[in-house]
């Protein structure tokens, strides 16, 4: 097979790697600006127009700092995990339709929903390993909290993700996104709300902010990182946030599909995609601002006693809705 120029372009520039990184910076800026305005302060203002270059400036600044590896760490794991988790998240984004089709054009297959969820788990596990391999007790506590939280919330996340899969009668994300003539958020509103809560916990944002509780455990798993590795660790977390938002958009909000004018589908699909992702980011940021941070045992209580039964219930009702839909539509 010869090297296909379109493939390389799609993987590296648009809608692949560069687009994902730029989208991450954009979402980070929107998040910080909205959070600042909700707290009645300014947010990033001076770097670039309205501060839009601030996340990029932070990344570049961290790249220029000294990169220290403490003596007692398991250094191979310590050095590799930031980049590994970042690449896992970006790789998972490759399977989600952005401008109407996947990054790698025929890479969607039946069951890639499960594949994407598994990749997210592996990438989160690498984040845990990054804390575990530091020799700092604060990092260890932070890493175990990350593990407890994301393993716990992965289960309701997957169960809730199967609701749209049932409605679309397929396990491929592209199929699910394409088969939403009415967005599934309107057909399964309770699953939409619960999925957003589960995504909030996966992304470790308030009220499930425990792994980043600086007042208790200093920096969590990021404590011993500095310089380039910290830059990649932070970027990995930001891509995780975008990935969570994109999952919500693909599964419940009809992905990139929307009204097309002037017959340039790629442009309009990308535009609707970006707008919907920004909307979900704003919603999760709103949830962050109105709640305090729960304790780790309260987080687990919410998971196992509230979210799990409700998600199983929602799956059962999704079966009912799928049945009713198929009866009606034929």
């Amino acid at each position, binding site marked *: 097979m010869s090297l296909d120029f379109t493939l390389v372009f799609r993987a590296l520039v648009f809608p692949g790697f560069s687009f994902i990184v730029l989208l991450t910076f954009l979402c980070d800026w929107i998040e910080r600006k909205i959070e600042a305005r909700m*707290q009645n302060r300014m947010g990033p203002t001076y770097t670039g127009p309205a501060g839009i270059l601030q996340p990029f400036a932070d990344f570049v600044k961290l790249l220029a700092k000294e990169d220290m590896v403490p003596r007692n760490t398991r250094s191979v794991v310590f050095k590799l995990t930031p980049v590994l988790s970042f690449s896992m998240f970006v790789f998972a984004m490759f399977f989600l339709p952005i401008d109407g089709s996947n990054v790698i054009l025929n890479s969607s297959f039946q069951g890639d929903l499960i594949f994407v969820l598994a990749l997210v788990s592996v990438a989160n596990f690498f984040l845990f390993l990054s804390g575990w391999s530091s020799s700092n007790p604060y990092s260890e506590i932070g890493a175990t909290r990350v593990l407890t939280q994301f393993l716990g919330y992965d289960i309701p996340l997957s169960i809730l993700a199967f609701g749209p899969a049932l409605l679309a009668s397929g396990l491929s994300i592209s199929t699910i996104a394409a088969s939403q003539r009415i967005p599934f958020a309107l057909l399964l509103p309770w699953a939409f709300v619960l999925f957003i809560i589960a995504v909030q916990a996966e992304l470790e944002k308030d*009220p499930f902010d425990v792994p980043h509780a*600086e*007042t208790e455990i200093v920096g969590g798993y990021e404590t011993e990182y500095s310089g380039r590795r910290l830059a990649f660790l932070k970027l990995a977390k930001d891509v995780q946030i975008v990935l969570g938002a994109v999952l919500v958009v693909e599964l419940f909000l009809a992905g990139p599909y929307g009204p097309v004018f002037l017959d340039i589908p790629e442009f309009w699909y990308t535009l609707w995609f970006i707008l919907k992702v920004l909307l979900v980011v704003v919603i999760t940021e709103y949830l962050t601002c*109105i709640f305090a941070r729960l*304790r780790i045992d309260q987080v687990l209580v919410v998971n196992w006693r509230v979210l799990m039964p409700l998600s199983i219930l929602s799956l059962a009702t999704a079966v009912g809705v799928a049945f009713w839909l198929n009866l009606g539509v034929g």
Partner: protein
Amino acid sequence: MTSVEEILTTLGNKLGEKMLQTPTPQLGKVSVRVNAGIHRDALKILLDKDESAGISAITGVDLGETIEVMYHVRTHGIIVTIRTQVPKKDPRIKTITDILPGANFHEKEVADLFGLTFEGHPDPGRLVLPEDWPKDLFPLRKDAEITNIENKKENITALDEGNQSSDEGVLTTVIMGPQHPALIEPEKFSLKVDGEIVKEVKPRIGYVHRGIEKAAEKRTYLQDVYLVERICGICNACHAACFCQAVEAIMGTEAPVRAKYLRTIVLELNRIQSHMLLLGHAGLEIGYEPLFQYMWRDREIAMDTMESLTGNRVIASFVTIGGVRRDLKEERIPKIKAGLATLKRRMIFYKNLLESDPTLKMRTKGVGVLERQDALKLCVVGPVARGSDVKMDVRKDEPYAAYDKIPFKMISYTEGDSWARLMVRLDEINESIDILNFALDNLPTGPYRVRVPRIVPAGEAISRVEAPRGELFYYVKSNGTAYPERVKMRTPTFANILSFAHIAEGGNIADVPASFVSLDPCFSCTDR
């Protein structure tokens, strides 16, 4: 209210070896002098009479051949002082921590700075001085030579147990501090945890000890006003007011009425901004950042008022011996009242929030409970005590400044958890706004300052002020020169630090910041 005579007659009847009753220049204060062993009996008599009696402070004074130890007991709203003398050649005295566990840190401080040994103390050791301070140099004695310390330092071989994460059996030691994001000022707390449950807490204070009590003896009274203001930035006006009240009591003068009202205004402004600072900080500790940002934005109203009234946002430098330094002009009052009205409106929002937000209640209700009995035994003061249903407030018990003329309510809650302590402070902000409005409306005319001589006649006096964090206690002794003989300050957080160990034990490690911040610690005050 039991009067002074009743307490004196009870003590006289029950004791008998009571030596002599030293007259003090202030009305309502009782002082008895006993032999070195009898102080425990005197304390037990006072406790029998009033179960909510507690140690307010323990003062040591160097009298040359002997060291005088004074136990200031707070009972029935007044202070009863039990004085005893200990010879310097044999500086030992029996402890009272078995009767009142709250005297633990007070005794340790006197032992540290004067070289006394309290026999039977459960945990002797350094409190405010560092570990490598020379062993037989006691700073607050008059004959101490504090020079050339570098060459006299002790060699300390091992620092305390549990460096980082050492596993002794099943207990891990987590050291919180001295630098930690949860603490705004440095102190060290060694927590022994078992999984997530805290089993034991050992505080070590003294990281911000600046030796202010000794420094106050080397400056004139006027310079001391500025010195004691800088003990703590947040409650600075209270320190200045307390010191000035003590010196005025020795001199026998009183500030004019307008000055008393102006002092009240500044003290209440101090209270408002301190409580708002704490409520915002509590929001930050439990991860609720919007509460922090909104609270501190609204706190700016109080800071701007303070700036227009006194000339500075934080360290007011407003109260002086004999009155206040500036006058409040009539044309500024409407603007201040408009600011207070905005603040009152915002307080309704915050009260609504604290009462109804589910995640906030999950983090603070039932967390860090301090029962009433423990609060009395540990001799806590301020909102920590009032949140556990101990009704004590110096503004009501022994009114100073203009508080006897201004009507207000004392706030107390019964639950004793972190939520109750935060609600006490919130309600106190509302009360303070009402006090300020009343004072601004009824400000009397007249002089705002009287001139006082620079040399203060010999005597001693005690003065108490209700700082935002609790009861602030000053003891000033003068020997007839322009420099004070002894200035003793007992700050409210110093009295409350022991209760932190008590409420953190048995809880989650994740609750430690939340319960800690509800105590409102101010370590600059603690260490002086």
